[in-house]
């Protein structure tokens, strides 16, 4: 039997202050970078504008490319995309374009300008995207609503399945994950597209998953009514679930790395955010959700029933579940 991290007795909670400082430092670093270089790099889905992805026959000279594009789309950003022959041109919608041809005509103009320069055979338009300002604003709002509502629903579910202390700790730890991920996205200059928003939400689900598994252990251990402080229970739960955590994170990371390496440029930002998510989940379920639970417990202690640490009513729904499972 191959075993890793078996019967460990690490005192994880002891290091929570160091961990808290590390994560706050990282978040502050990200926020500081916000203050210096402005908001994150949003994709045109959010900012509105036009994006044209081009594939050239020969690797083009970037300065020449810029010179060809600038007259039709002033201030366009030109970025290499994956290989040396692929480029993206990203233009903001100019004021007068809205009155005449609408959002898409910028893309056509860029196409015509490039055809004049490189010839119709010299390049190929792989992808065009044009988003009007209203759509962009709505998407931003939709993403924010999705995140808030997702957290709220999870809060209610966990409060129902565990108890409110666990739910609050789990959701606050999710909020921490959002901040941490935003700092990561900002520091590594990842373009925030809808796909990346999906990755952030998956990451939140994954991290919540991890927290739930540790809390589930705590819930179970509390039911055994040992006379020990919650801190020790938490530590034991983390140690007991450690082999599972390591293995699950390993398989998820393996799948994520496969995506980073093989799935191509379009999915790469998604995969990077998910790879970071594996570490966020590991970290936050041990060092954020745990200490938060302890802190809430200290501020609002659960009613002590003759030395019993657990509130007897709390684990009841789970107990019912175990019975049905056993009956099968």
């Amino acid at each position, binding site marked *: 039997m191959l075993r890793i991290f078996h019967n460990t007795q690490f005192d994880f909670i002891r290091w929570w202050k160091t961990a808290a400082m590390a994560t706050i430092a990282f978040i502050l670093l990200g926020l500081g970078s916000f203050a210096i270089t402005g908001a994150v790099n949003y994709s045109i889905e959010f900012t509105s504008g036009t994006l044209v992805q081009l594939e050239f026959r020969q690797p083009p000279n970037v300065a020449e490319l810029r010179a060809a594009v600038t007259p039709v789309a002033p201030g366009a950003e030109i970025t290499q995309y994956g290989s040396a022959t692929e480029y993206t041109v990203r233009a903001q919608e100019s004021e007068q374009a809205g009155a005449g041809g609408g959002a898409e005509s910028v893309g056509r103009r860029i196409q015509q300008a490039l055809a004049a320069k490189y010839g119709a055979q010299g390049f190929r338009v792989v992808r065009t995207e044009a988003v009007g300002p209203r759509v962009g604003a709505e998407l931003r709002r939709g993403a924010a609503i999705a995140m808030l509502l997702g957290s709220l629903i999870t809060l209610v579910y966990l409060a129902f399945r565990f108890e409110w202390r666990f739910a609050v700790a789990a959701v606050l730890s999710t909020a921490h994950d959002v901040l941490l991920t935003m700092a990561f996205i900002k520091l590594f200059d990842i373009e925030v597209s809808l796909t990346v928003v999906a990755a952030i*939400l998956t990451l939140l689900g994954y991290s919540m998953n991890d927290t739930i598994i540790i809390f589930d252990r705590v819930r179970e251990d509390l039911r055994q009514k040992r006379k020990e402080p919650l801190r020790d229970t938490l530590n034991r739960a983390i140690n007991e679930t450690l082999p599972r955590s390591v293995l699950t994170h390993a398989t998820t990371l393996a*799948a994520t790395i496969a995506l980073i390496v093989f799935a191509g440029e379009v999915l790469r930002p998604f995969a990077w955010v998910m790879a970071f998510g594996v570490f966020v989940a590991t970290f936050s379920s041990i060092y954020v959700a745990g200490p938060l639970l302890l802190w809430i417990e200290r501020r609002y202690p659960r009613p002590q029933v003759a030395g019993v640490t657990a509130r007897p009513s709390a684990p009841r729904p789970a107990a019912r579940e175990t019975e049905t499972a056993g009956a099968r």
Partner: protein
Amino acid sequence: MPNLKYRLLLIGALLLASAWALFPRTVVERVKRNGVFVTDTVRRVPLKRGLDLQGGMHLTLEIDESKGTVANPSEALDRALTVVRNRIDELGVAEPVVQKVGDDRIIVELPGIDDPVRAQGVVERAAFLEFQITDETQALERSLPRLDAIAARLLPQAAARTASATAPGAPGAGAAAPTGLGGLLTPGADSARRDTTQVAAAAGSDSAPRDTARRAGDSAAVPSTNGAFSKAVQQGAGIPGQYFVAESDYLRLQPLVDSPEVQAAMPPGKVLRWGADTAVLGGQVYRSLYVLDSRPIITGEYLVDAKPTSDPVEGNAVQFTLSREGGRRFQNETSRHIKDNMAVVLDQRVITAPTIQSAIGVNGQITLGGGSLQEAQDLAIVLRAGALPVPLKVAETREIGASLGQDSIRKGVLAMVIAVLLVMTIMISYYRMSGALAVAALVTYGVYTLAVLAGFNAVLTLPGLAGFVLSIGIAVDANVLIFERIREELDRGKSVRLAIDEGFRHALSAIVDSSVATILTAAVLYQYGTGPVRGFAVTLIAGIAASLFTAIFVTRTFFMIWLSRSPRAQQALSI
């Protein structure tokens, strides 16, 4: 062991159902053969690929409120939806999607389309057809001073200067101002403004004899030849109410003419309309400008059919048929206007303005001049499908080349295969035989997930593919939880059979809670996401549901078979 038999039966039945759901089947759909779409039967796996995987065009249309407010946008959009759908159907695209989203938006998805410009033109075109008699009262000359005044007020000076610099070659009035216009404009505009009151008085009494009005107009026009309009507009050739404007001036004046302010400055009952085509006269490109009776003698709503024709003499044209009532009205009106010119106006642009030779009944023809046969086809399509009840504008477009889609699929599948191999290696090397059972369960997991996706008619997108790859990594989580639990129970000295029972039972609450929490998040994503992200949410939900089932039911069954078959496993579990 009857229990085991039923379990196996259920797993087998589900696998069979999944295989049936995923089996390539014959479907009737539009496919492209030699560049044209035909309805044909094809065999394919019933998993729909999203636009980002097969290439195509996505359009989001919303009501263009810059052209006036709409009283009931949602209802108007419903009618517009029907029109857009009819047009798309006639365009011939494989499996188009035309949908209303919310109250204010229509999305159009056209997979595999290779001429996005044309498709967008067909969708976006208002297709409002009017027949209007051209003006014979010199209405433009009468209102030139007023138009000049408006131009002087609204046109940016810089734009006026560049336009005049490019237009000195224009014959007639245009050639009169080779000097910079900027300086000259101000006095011209001043006098024009003074004249405006004079002309307004004359034109206000429209019942006054025509020549009085004309005299007033003529006298007013004289001092303001330097105004933007009077300078640019020249008398047309032959057709009454037709004028020419140099192309460079057109670019400058076009938004002005289309503005309500300029139209209001015309005498009552008259409108200004641009021609759709340009003409070359003496090496200079000109655009026609028409003055028309604002009341159309008939509109496109009476049209019942339209088809493209090609004539060696007249060029490409669209023949149309009117309804009986429309035919009667058309006959009436045209017989009163014989020898007059009738402008065919589509979306406020004059296509042709032929002279009416005799009364026209239910059948008519719109000659396109230099237009291609495809233009005639497209025009026939939009006329047949009817005019859009509200003006629409494109709020968002996304075009993905077919090659990019194929590339994405290839890479996505490669990533998936490698991810699966990695996960299998980790599981088998760590959990040995039990790991192998989990891997076998993982295979059923993959089949179930894809089948659920096919069953719900979900669209597989690129983020969806990523979600699937990721869910393979996460799917083993439930197995890992169970296996670790079994190990713990074995450590406590329990028998193999009991340890397995206890392991599955204790792991259950954590598995259920974490799955439900993730499904809830995914459901929110589905509700608030669009396009590809929705695909991702659907894949995630299908994946979690399948993983829940395989972990607590399929793996368990495999364990039961293993225990009942292998006596050695009962002594020492390979886990």
